[in-house]
């Protein structure tokens, strides 16, 4: 049945050779993605979510990087493919929306031209058709008066507008998978919701799948069908969005949820934080990476790393020796 899935990631591991030794940024990650599904990848800074999203599409740095395992996008094995081979799926099968719209547009090229490029080079459109299509795309992502905007430079647009342009560029060759790496982190809060709604809307209209990488649980709560929670380069819990929010078993997931501000809290309530800091990926212990910060940790946690094990709900699994009880009280942001 795996032919049906748009993306199958299996045992994906990314290792960087650094001066301090080998650094495993992503370790044995496996998951898959249906067509027209939105998946959230959640984790704090340095949990490997960005490296994971880039490795999935084969965009890891060329130098000192080893990737093992497999990442199959619509039947195309990305791991081990040459740049030339990957170029055939970049843009048409998988595209990317970047975190910071300030740096993801070429400052010296008119935005219309930046959309045109892909259309002309990849789809072989002529100048006139490409321009018409580019204007169509600008309209699709909700840019007012797209005909005039076609000729503006990125510096003349606001952050939200620029992120819309970035999305338009990503959509140019109608990719089946859109990778959105913290697409709203660089934006004002008021614009964030607009961009997320836009992504949602486009996903439905264009029948594509979206991977939403974020550290913000609020972002993924209503927009994803499934969530992958990452810690220190590994998946620590995965399941449907509902299961992860209401039936999570991994203390880290609970800690993440608890550290989101809640409307129901009285004002001036101190925000709950996770004590300690993310582990140094250069010298990880053999045990659970979260153990040093976990209030439920036992000796076993420090010595042996727990593997992902299924919970009672289908598709819900977690990696923990001392999981939270099945019907533990839900904490919601």
């Amino acid at each position, binding site marked *: 049945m795996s032919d049906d899935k748009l993306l199958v990631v299996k045992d994906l591991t990314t290792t960087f050779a650094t001066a301090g030794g080998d650094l495993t940024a992503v370790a044995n990650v496996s998951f898959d993605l249906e067509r027209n599904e939105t998946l959230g990848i959640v984790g704090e800074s340095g949990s490997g979510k960005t490296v994971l999203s880039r490795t999935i599409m084969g965009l890891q740095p060329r130098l000192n990087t080893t990737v093992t395992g497999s990442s199959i996008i619509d039947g195309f094995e990305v791991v081990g493919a040459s740049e030339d081979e990957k170029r055939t799926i970049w*843009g048409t099968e998988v595209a990317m929306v970047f975190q910071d719209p300030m740096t993801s547009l*070429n400052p010296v090229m008119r935005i219309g031209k930046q959309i045109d490029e892909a259309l002309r080079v990849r789809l072989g459109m002529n100048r006139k058709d490409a321009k018409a299509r580019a204007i169509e795309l600008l309209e699709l992502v909700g840019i007012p008066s797209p005909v005039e905007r076609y000729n503006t430079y990125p510096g003349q647009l606001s952050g939200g507008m620029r992120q819309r342009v970035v999305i338009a560029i*990503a959509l140019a060759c109608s990719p089946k998978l859109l990778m959105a790496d913290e697409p709203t982190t660089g934006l004002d809060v008021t614009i964030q919701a607009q961009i997320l709604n836009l992504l949602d809307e486009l996903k439905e209209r264009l029948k594509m799948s979206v991977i939403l990488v974020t550290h913000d649980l609020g972002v993924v709560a209503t927009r994803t069908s499934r969530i992958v929670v990452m810690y220190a380069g590994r998946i620590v819990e995965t399941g449907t969005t509902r299961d992860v929010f209401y039936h999570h078993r991994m203390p880290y997931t609970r800690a993440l949820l608890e550290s989101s501000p809640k409307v129901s809290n009285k004002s001036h309530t101190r925000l709950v934080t996770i004590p300690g800091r993310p582990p140094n990926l250069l010298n990880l212990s053999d045990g659970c990476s979260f153990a040093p910060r976990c209030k439920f940790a036992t000796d076993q946690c420090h010595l042996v790393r727990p593997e992902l094990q299924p919970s009672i709900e289908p598709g819900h699994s977690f990696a923990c020796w001392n999981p939270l009880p099945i019907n533990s009280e839900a904490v919601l942001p």
Partner: protein
Amino acid sequence: MSNFSSLEEAAVLVEKPEKSEPLGLFFWICVGWVGLNVFGAIFANVLPLQSPLTESFNAINAGPSLHHLLGTDDLGRDIFSRVVYGSRVSITVGIGAILIGYGIGAPLGMLAAYRRGRFDAILTAVMYLLLAFPAIIATIAVLSFWTPRSLLKIIIVIGIASIPLVYRVIRTATLNVATKDYVVAAKVQGATDRRILMKELLPNIFPIALSFFLIGVATIIVLEGALAFLGLSVNPPTPSWGNMINEARTVLSQNIWLALFPSLALCLFLIGLNFIGDRIRAHFDVTEVKL
């Protein structure tokens, strides 16, 4: 489709284009001056100038006069004419040599910064090794033995000496751009390396390249002047700013003009070039803040 309640509301979000730093009047004065020099160098033999080689024993070491605007030298040759003709050598060497430097150094620098890896490591090590060796000593050594000296040989030697300098500047500028998200964005849209180099990297390093080009010309003119002063540039009687200053050295007590005017010409030309280069860099400086 749009999430805005009205177009007016959306239009507010479109900021006015940021004003870049104005170039200023002095910039245009410098452009005019440098342009005038280049014009003089190109059209020296068409312009109504006296011959730079005609000796006149009636006016030796004469001061400025109507007949000889800047006076004459110790052989009675017109200094004004010699300064104009002298600019030919200086400017030709300056532009010719930097073109060689850019022709080889710039593509290598861009490639190295974009590809990284072993290619970059080895090339950069070699270039830094060359940089560590003083260019002036190298050029003096080569030009002393590579005789007879001609303009072309001087251009080639200085040009080769400038390659590591150009390489370093272009590589650094490219490194800065190559890590930007829009380069990655172009890549995941399926752009080829060639396309990324030409369309994403080149336009973004162009202001720095242009600015360093002008400053490079200035630096090389000084180097040529130094070589000419040592008698290692074009052979007399062909004038160049450097060898005129050298000739003036022996008659400094009788004729201050012979030393003054070529030095002044050299100095003003260099100030002009440097200022233009600097203003261009500042004008096109696309900083994050402005974005």
